[in-house]
C-alpha cells in the first residue's frame, strides 16, 4: 500500500490545515484563557484577544537588544517555518496532505525540536540573565519531554508497523478496536503530559506570569518586541494547535478525510475543530485544577510521562 499523493487535493488539504492552525492556535490560547477566567470567577478577555494582540504587535516598532546578533532576528523565522512545515505535512484534515509520505514521527518531533532550539538560541543571543535563564529551563524541559513524545508516538506505531503518521491513522480507522488497547491508553497519558510541557501550560509553566523565579518561556522571549514577538507568539500558538490536533487525531482519527473531495474536507475540518476544542478544554481544566510545580519537581512529572510512554511501547509489544 503506497500513499499516493494527490497533488491538488494534498495542496488544498495542507492549505486548509495551515489556515486552521494559524488562526485556530491563537484562538485555542484565547479559549483556554477564557475557560480559566470563568472557572476563577472572572469574565476574562474575549477569545479572539490573542489574534488582536498579534495584529497590534505587527504595527509596533522593531527593537533589538544591543549585543544581539543576526540570530535574534532569524530565530522567530525558524520557529514559524518549522511549525508551518510540520503543520502542512501532518495528517490533520486529510490523510493525504502535501508530502504526507514524509510525515514521519521523527520528522515532526525533530521539526518541533528545531523550533525549540531556535527559540533557546534567541534567548541566549540577548546576553542577559533572563534570556539565559529561560533558555536553560526551556531546554531542560524539552530534553525530558521530547523523548517521551517520540516514544509515545512509537507506541502508537507498533500496531500498524510504520512510523508514518498518515498510515497510522488510516490503519486505526480500519481497526476501531485498537483505540481501547492498553498501550494506546498509556500512550495517551504520556502524550497529555508531554503536550502540557511542550506548550508551556500549568503545572509545567505559567504563560501568564512574569515573575523571575517561575517563568520559563516568557523569560526566554523577554527581549522580543513588535513584529518579531508576533512571529514567536504565532509560532508557539501553531505548535500548540498542531500538538492538540495531532493528539486528537492519533487517538480518534474518525472524521479525517481519506479522499480529497470538498465535502469530506469540510466534514474533516468541522470534526478536527470539535476534537481539538475538546482537548483544549481538557487541558484548561487540568490547568485550573492544578498549581504550578516547582522547577525541580518537574523532572518527576516528565519522567513519569517518559515511563508511561515506555510502558506503552512494552505493552504494545507484549500484546501485539
Amino acid at each position, binding site marked *: 500500500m503506497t500513499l499516493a499523493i494527490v497533488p491538488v487535493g494534498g495542496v488544498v488539504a495542507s492549505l486548509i490545515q495551515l489556515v486552521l492552525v494559524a488562526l485556530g492556535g491563537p484562538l485555542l490560547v484565547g479559549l483556554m484563557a477564557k475557560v480559566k477566567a470563568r472557572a476563577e470567577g472572572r469574565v476574562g478577555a474575549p477569545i479572539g484577544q490573542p489574534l488582536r494582540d498579534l495584529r497590534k504587535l505587527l504595527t509596533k516598532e522593531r527593537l533589538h537588544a544591543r*549585543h544581539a546578533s543576526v540570530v535574534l532576528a532569524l530565530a522567530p*523565522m525558524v520557529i514559524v517555518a518549522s511549525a508551518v512545515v510540520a503543520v502542512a505535512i501532518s495528517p490533520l484534515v486529510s490523510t493525504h496532505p502535501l508530502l504526507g509520505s514524509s510525515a514521519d514521527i*521523527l*520528522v515532526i518531533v*525533530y521539526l518541533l525540536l528545531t523550533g525549540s532550539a531556535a527559540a533557546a538560541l534567541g534567548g541566549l*543571543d540577548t546576553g542577559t540573565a533572563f534570556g539565559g535563564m529561560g533558555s536553560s529551563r526551556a531546554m531542560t524541559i524539552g530534553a525530558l*519531554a521530547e523523548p517521551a513524545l517520540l516514544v509515545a508516538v512509537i507506541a502508537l506505531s507498533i500496531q500498524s508497523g*510504520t512510523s508514518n503518521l498518515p498510515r497510522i491513522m488510516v490503519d486505526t480507522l480500519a481497526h476501531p478496536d485498537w483505540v481501547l488497547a492498553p498501550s494506546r491508553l498509556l500512550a495517551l497519558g504520556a502524550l497529555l503530559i508531554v503536550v502540557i510541557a511542550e506548550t508551556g501550560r500549568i503545572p509545567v509553566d505559567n504563560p501568564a506570569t512574569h515573575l523571575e523565579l517561575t517563568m520559563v518561556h516568557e523569560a526566554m522571549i523577554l527581549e522580543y518586541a513588535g513584529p518579531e514577538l508576533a512571529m514567536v507568539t504565532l509560532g508557539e500558538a501553531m505548535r500548540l494547535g498542531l500538538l492538540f490536533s495531532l493528539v486528537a487525531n492519533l487517538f480518534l482519527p474518525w472524521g479525517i478525510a481519506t479522499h480529497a473531495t470538498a465535502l469530506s474536507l469540510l466534514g474533516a475540518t468541522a470534526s478536527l475543530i470539535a476534537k481539538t476544542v475538546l482537548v483544549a478544554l481538557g487541558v484548561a481544566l487540568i490547568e485550573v485544577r492544578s498549581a504550578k510545580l516547582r522547577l525541580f519537581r518537574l523532572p518527576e512529572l516528565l519522567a513519569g510521562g517518559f515511563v508511561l510512554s515506555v510502558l506503552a511501547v512494552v505493552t504494545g*509489544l507484549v500484546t501485539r
Partner: protein
Amino acid sequence: MFLAALSICASAAVMAAVLPRRPRVVVSAALGALGCLLASGVALRILLTGETLAFHTSQVLPVTGFSLTIDPLGAWFILVSSFVGAAACVFNVGYAKGAMASRSALSMFMLFIVTLLAVPAASSVMTLMFFWEMMALSSWLLILTDQTRHPDARSAALWYGAMTQAGAASILLGLLVMTSHGGGQSFADVSAHSLALSGVTRSFAFVLVLLGFASKAGAVPLHVWLPKAHPEAPSPVSALMSSSMVAMGVYGIIRVGEDLLHGGTVWWWIAVALLGVVSALYGALHATTSTDLKRLLAYSTVDIIGLVLIGVGAAGALADNAQPVIAHLAMTAALMLVLAHAAFKGALFLAAGAIERATGTRNLDLLGGLIHSMPVTALVVVISAGAIMAVPTLSGFSSEWLLLQGLLHGFRVASTPTVIVMLLGVIALALTGGLTAVAFVKAFGIGFLGQARSTGAATARETSTSMRVAMGWLTIPSVVIGVVPGLFVPLLNRASSSALNASVVSPLTRDTGVVVSKLGGAIEPAALLVGLVAVMALLWAFTQSLTQRRARRVDAWGCGRELQTPRMQYTATSFAEPLQRVFADVLRPQADVEVTHVAESRYYEQSLMYENRIVDVLEARGYRPLIAVTMRLGRQARRLQNGSINRYLAFGFVALLVVLVVVG
C-alpha cells in the same frame, strides 16, 4: 592507485621530517591532502563498482608479508578517513605553529593519516596489527606535542597509552585464538577455518576482540581515555581521532564479527548493542554538563558511537534472527551515521581549534559573542551542531531516521531478547536526542552568542583562510547527506552487503530522498528544505516590507538597572545546572562553597568562591581503585629487589627448580 595514495601520504611524512620549517608545513599538507583525495577516489570507485582490490607483497614485513585488500566495507571506512584526513591536512597549514610545526609532530601527523587509511585495507592479522599499533603510537605521540600549553597532556597520554595497549593485546589474543586451528593468518584463511572452531572458542575470541575494538571506539565503560586524550591533542589530530580513529573500532567489530566469524550468535550482537545503549546515554549526559568545549565534543563522540553500535548490534542480531533485509537496513543506518559523524564532529573539533587559537581558551564559561568576530566559524558550528542535533534536512537526521526504521521494523520480527535490546536502543535514541540538543544549544549559544566573558573572547579574530576552507569542506557532507540522502543509497547498499556478507535485495530505494520500500517509510528532506526556506524567505520579505526595515538597537531589560555586565549572563555551567540536578544520581557533581568573611563582622562577606566539578564516575569508582591496587602490588614487588647479588642468584636457582619440576 591506493598504494600510490598511501605512498604520497607517507612521502608527506618524509618531507615533513627533512624540509626546513617554512615549506615543511605547506608541502606536507599539500601532499597529505593529495594522497587523501586519491584514496577517496579509489574508495568511491570501489563503492560504485563493487569490485575488490587486493595486494600482497612479502618484501616489507618479514615472515608474513604484507597484504591489503579493499572490499566495499573497507572502502567505506577509507572514504571516511580520507575525507577527514584531507580537511585535517589543509587545516594544519593555518594551525601548525610552535610545537605542531616541528619535524616530529608533522611527520607523526602524516603517519597517523597513513595508518587510518591502511587499517581498513589490512587483510591479514599481522598487517592489521602492524598498522593498528602504528596508529596508536603515532596518535599517542601527537597528544604529547604541546606539553607546555597543555599540562594535562601527559596524564592524558598515560591513560590513552595504557588503554590502547591493553586493547591491542586483547585484539591480538583474540585474533590468535581464531588462527589457532591451523590455516594461515590472512583474513581469507581465518574466515574459511573459523567455522571449524568450537562455539565456545569463537565466542571467547569475539569477546576478546570486542573488548579491544570497543575501547578504541570509546564505548562505555572502556571510554575513560577518550574525554582526556581527544581534548589534549592538537585540534587536527583530535578531529582525526574523534571522527576516524573511533570509527576504526566500529570497523573492527564488524570485520571480525560478521566477516571472520560469520555472524556468530545472537548474544554477541546483543552485547554490542547494550554497549551502545550505555555509551549513548552516558556520553550524552556528560556532554550536556561539560564546560570544556573539546571535552563536550569528546563525550558527544561517545554518544554517537553508542548509536552506531546500537545499529551494528541490531544488524548483527537481526541477521542471526534470519532477517537479512532489516539487518541490512540497520547496518546501512550505522554506516551512514559513521560518515555523518566523521564530518560534523571533524568540523566541530577543527572549529574548537580555531576558537582556541583565536581566544586562548576552550572553556565555554570564558567565551561568548564570537559570532560577531568569527562569523564563518559560527556558521560551520551552526550547521555541524544542527547535524548532530538531528535537525531535519541535515545529516544526523537522515541517519537517525534510518536507524529508527531499522529498530521499529525489527520489533515486528525478532525474538524476545533482540526485541528488548532494540527497545532499549529506541529509548536511548529518544533520550540522547533531547540531551544532545541541550549540549549543542549550550555550545553554540554560550560560545558564540551574548557578550564576551573574557578579554580573549572579546579580542578574537576570524581564522586564516586554510582553516576556514578545511572547516567548510567538512560541512559539505552534513548538508549533502541531509538534503539528498538518496545519493548515498547505492554506495551504502554495497558497503552494507559487504559488511553483512550477504547480498540481499536492499529495502532502500533511491529517490531524491530515501524510501524504505515494502516496509513503508519515506523521507523527502529536499522538499522539507524547500518548504522551510520558502517560509523563511516569505517572513524575511515581510519584515523588509514594514515601514521600519532595520531594528532599532536598545539596551536589554535590566530590571530597572542601567548596568548590564557580561558577568550577569548565564554561563555553560549555569545553563546545564538544571539537568545536572536532575541527573545528580548518575553524574555525582561535587560542589565546594568557600566564604571569606569581613574581618570586622561575620555577618558580612568579603568574597565567595563556588566550585562545581563533575568527575567521570566510572573513572573515579572503577578505574582509580584498580590503579591503586596495581600501584600497591608494584610497590610490594619492589621489595624483592634489594640489589644483593646473592638474592638474585637465589631467585634464579628457585626459578630453575620450578621449571625442572614443571617440565619433569
